[in-house]
């Protein structure tokens, strides 16, 4: 029998699961050595028994548990605890699980504000009360997985590159240590940096960066941050390009938005970026919306509702 693998998705989009499928033919190799015992995207294993008549949520036991998504409601919490109970190793798969991800932008608002907007849009027939029957209550915030359960391995990325998922599964099957990137996106970026100097403001990404020709190699293009674009490369963990290394967005001539989260797990992309800009003499007031620097890492209480909203909710 192979390694037993269980997979769950919480406050997520399914991109991490599609990234697993995007291993391509390697997926068939993985299936040779892994028994997938639970993955709602692909396999019909149910929480309350196959006949839906059990009282308690129950998942099969597994050697490895992959969990994508943060923890946003009571169902997520229950599933996360059950996965922890049944799996020997828990992998936080993707930046939502490791740092909250894009959905943790909601942490700037209370659940009440979120419900008020969702059920109060221009096209919505306003209800007398918000939905509450058979749907899990929302938690106060969108939490990273390790705020609620112990995590053994972190695989950030939005989504993690299929190479990273494959390498992690192979390492686990072979019982070898897993190497995860520890560098920043900048450390792996081939563009040309000329050093400190002339830049005083960052500008919004409304025009293409300067480069000579459509086929100009990246190692001849000037660093996008030095071109004045707000590129999160200095404060973002490397690895989005997989084994090919080159950062994905940069190679599309688009600035890094920070999707793999901070370089160190406990880093703060907002503070680190403001420091980096300020120490280079760049006016941080030129950034139009600073909380957006935490767009991938707003969990761990880094993004919070305004104080008066917290009091009134």
């Amino acid at each position, binding site marked *: 029998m192979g390694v037993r693998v269980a997979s769950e998705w919480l406050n997520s989009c399914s991109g991490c699961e599609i990234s697993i499928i995007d291993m*391509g033919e390697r997926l068939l190799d993985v299936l040779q050595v892994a028994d997938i015992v639970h993955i709602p995207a692909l396999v019909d294993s*149910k929480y309350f028994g196959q006949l839906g008549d059990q009282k308690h949520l129950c998942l099969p036991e597994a050697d490895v548990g992959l969990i994508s998504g943060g923890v946003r*409601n009571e169902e997520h919490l229950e599933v996360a605890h059950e996965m922890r109970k049944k799996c020997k190793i828990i992998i936080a798969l993707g930046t939502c699980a490791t740092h909250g991800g*894009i959905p943790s*932008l909601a942490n700037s608002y209370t659940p009440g504000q979120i419900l*008020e907007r969702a059920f109060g849009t221009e096209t*919505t027939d306003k209800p007398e009360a918000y939905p509450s029957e058979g749907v899990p209550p929302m938690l106060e915030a969108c939490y990273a997985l390790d705020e609620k359960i112990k995590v053994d391995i972190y695989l950030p990325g939005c989504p993690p590159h299929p190479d990273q998922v494959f390498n992690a599964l192979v390492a686990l099957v072979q019982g070898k240590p897993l190497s995860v990137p520890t560098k920043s996106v900048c450390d792996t970026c081939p563009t040309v940096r000329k050093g400190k100097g002339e830049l005083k403001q960052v500008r919004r990404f409304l025009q*293409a960066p300067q480069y000579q020709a459509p086929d100009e190699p990246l190692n001849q293009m000037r660093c996008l941050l030095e071109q004045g674009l707000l590129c999160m490369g200095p404060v973002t963990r490397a690895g989005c390009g997989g084994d090919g290394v080159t950062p994905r967005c940069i190679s599309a001539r688009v600035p890094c938005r920070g999707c793999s989260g901070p370089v160190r797990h406990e880093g703060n992309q907002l503070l680190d970026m403001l420091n980096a800009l300020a120490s280079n003499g760049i006016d941080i007031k030129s950034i139009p919306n600073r909380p957006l620097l935490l767009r991938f890492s707003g969990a761990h209480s880094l993004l919070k509702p305004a104080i008066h909203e917290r009091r009134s909710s």
Partner: protein
Amino acid sequence: MSQAITIQPITRIEGHASIKIWLDDAGNYQDARVNYMSLRGFEKFVEGKPAEELPDIVCRICGICPWMHHLASNKAVDRCFGVTPTPAGHKLRELMQTIAHAEDKLLHFYFLAAPDFVIGPDADYAVRNVVGIAKANPELATQVVKTRYMVKMILDKFSRKTIHPIAGVPGGFCKPMLEEERQDILAKMRQVLDFALFTIDFAKKNVFPKYLDAIKTLGVITTGFIGTVDENGAHNLYDGKIRLMKADGSFVDFDAQDYADYLGEHVEPWSYGKFPYARTWNEGFALDVDHPKGIYRANTLARINVADRMATPRAQAELEEFRALFGRPAQATLLYHYARLIEEVYACERAIEILEDPIITDTNVRAKVEPNAGRGVGCVEAPRGTLIHDYSTDANGLITRANLIVGTTHNLGPMNLSVKQAARALIHDGQVTEGILNRIEMAVRAYDP
């Protein structure tokens, strides 16, 4: 009520949903519901953000169809800022969206839906999945995995990031296409078209005939339909007018900017997902299996029902064959799978057409953009249905208000009706088997990507 059955989670779909079925004392159907379990709050938390950043934020609504959100959002921001994308920028966006459709339909048919048809609805759940298919038919499985991967890697290699995309930008596209890239992608899409034609033939010979009884009975309801058509009334995935059709086949066409005059969203106390309905029909909203009110459906079957014809020759031939068998509009829910394969043929043919257009390698891919106060509605056909992003911006180009109607939600009402219909037809005298419960789930799965 003597018994409640919970199917949770609904599996082999994208997203979080469950089914609850209540039986009476005699063990017969009393009621059923599909609960949509999660709310992330995108409409709130995009407020205050620079509009040009939204296409890279909202794609996280869905990891299966991120291109759809990315591009609907880009279109909405273009409108807010009053910019028209360059011709090459426009075509590159449509090319990415069309190829993403081609990939999605292969994923859905073979990875998510096919286990019910190829392995069988009553098979043990441990083998009723893509792994089971790989073991039962390794040759086909290898070809499926290879072809789907090839399509996905076209998007990944050219756009650099396909979950979640960054290549669409306000005013157009982030980079031009080189001639050698064009030739490479064109050759690959011709191969994918061959596979699409093989797939629809395979399904017409080996899959659909076996399940004709199920197609005629499982989850069958009578509703209206919504989809996008071009100026000639032909099916379109990327651009055009929205067409809203009643069950009797009559329809109205409207500009996406005016969607709020035609559609409303109803709220039920047991679902975070809202229920869009045809407000313009002035009959309200009712989830009544026999007499639904305001209910229309979206996604593949809806799109081929509302279209007068398909815009490409092979897809049109398939549509004619389909219509000769099932009429217009066709109502049987499992026909979503058949319609999906017709759209797969269209997506491949359309991608080839775009790649053969010389404008595709033009280097002027991005128009100049200035932040602006404005309002814009961006609309594309996502795999699951008509996707609407509606934004307003202030003078600095920051979002002041966002309203989203996501493809999936159009079908939340219909999925409830199909599940009610299936449960009522299949459960008698307390007899509940795994096969019956899976058939009820199949009524939901048909509506997935």
